[in-house]
């Protein structure tokens, strides 16, 4: 019995420890695979075989700046510095009810249209940035899975 129990405990501990490092929870939808060792840039990143990627960044703000400030800052940065086209904006909420903003951008990469979506949340003196991007057609194809993943995001 002990022989089976030891690996199970170790596995459970590993899962818990891995989870402990993230101040949020997000589920990976079927069709995507979570990538390992994404720190320090990303706290989480998953991708489809076609190269659609969803990633979560967490930035300690020490309480500086509210949701509007960070949304405006990221929007300016994407539009003016990299020439991303702001296609749409929307108010969103994480699973735990934290309000956020979604910015939907378009950008050509090697003459092909790509979509880049950025959700901005501010919670517990941290900034949560959920980035989703890929070729336009593929992002639309995986829309259901990506929406589902966004809906599972819970900020601790």
């Amino acid at each position, binding site marked *: 019995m002990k022989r089976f129990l030891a690996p199970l405990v170790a596995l459970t501990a590993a899962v818990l420890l891995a989870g402990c490092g993230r101040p949020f929870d997000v589920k990976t939808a079927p069709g995507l695979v979570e990538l390992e060792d994404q720190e320090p840039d990303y706290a989480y990143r998953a991708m489809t075989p076609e190269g659609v990627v969803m990633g979560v960044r967490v930035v300690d703000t020490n309480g500086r700046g509210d949701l509007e400030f960070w949304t405006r800052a990221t929007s300016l940065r*994407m539009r003016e*510095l990299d020439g*991303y086209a702001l*296609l749409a904006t929307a108010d969103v909420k994480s699973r735990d009810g934290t309000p956020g903003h979604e910015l939907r951008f378009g*950008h050509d990469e090697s*003459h092909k249209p790509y979509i880049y979506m950025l959700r901005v949340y501010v919670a517990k003196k941290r900034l949560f940035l959920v980035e989703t991007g890929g070729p336009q057609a593929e992002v639309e194809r995986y829309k259901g899975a990506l929406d589902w993943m966004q809906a599972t995001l819970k900020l601790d």
Partner: protein
Amino acid sequence: MKRTRPGAVVFSVLLMLGASGCAAGGAVAGARAPSAMAAPEPPPPPPPSPALAPGGGALALAMNDPAKAKSVSDSPHSAAMLIYTANLSLAVFQVEPGLDAVERVARDVGGYLSSRQDNSITIRVPRDHFDDTIARIEKLGDVTHRDIKAQDVTDEFVDLQARLKNAYSIRDRLNELLSRAAVKEALEIEKELGRVTEDIERMEGKLKLLRDQMAFSTVTVTFAPVAVEQVRDSSLLAPFPWLRQLGLQSLLNVHQ
């Protein structure tokens, strides 16, 4: 009756030429020449910006037709003569369809394609369609920067016209003298005639160019981000270096 000596006449014409300032740079002297035409009245104040004066009214209509434009601009009471130019920067998304769409807009309003590169296009559109061209282009994408200018060329235009009229009258006078001149004077007159004709052609060319620039506004659309130099100076990025890492390049590079 006192007989006029050709040599004296040639001398006086040459004097007139020197004073009239037919050559470039003699703008003030040309405008003041008393015999050819009355001195033009100072131009009226410029009209409001194109956004405030859609359509452009009679002047704009006249600008589409050089003949009409000439008649309007000939009037000392005509409105200020403006050359409109617009530079629009659009975000880099669906560039090829965007360039095609801008070209279509130019054709729709009676304009034409001036030049087209990988990520920018320049079109010329009739002045009275300038505003709606800008409005239509702005709907094609996300406009990140817009620079619209109206250059007042009234002074330059009126001055050029005055100098041209003066040059015409000098040319006529020289032709008249040539018909009566002896061989020696004829050579001198022909030389001067050549110079005046050259001046006239240059001034006519410049007037034609100004009329064209007034009749057709120039709109340049560029699908590009802000210049790298400006990015380096951005005050936004300095305290938040992580902002630089946002975007597709970083997100999609899963091998890092």
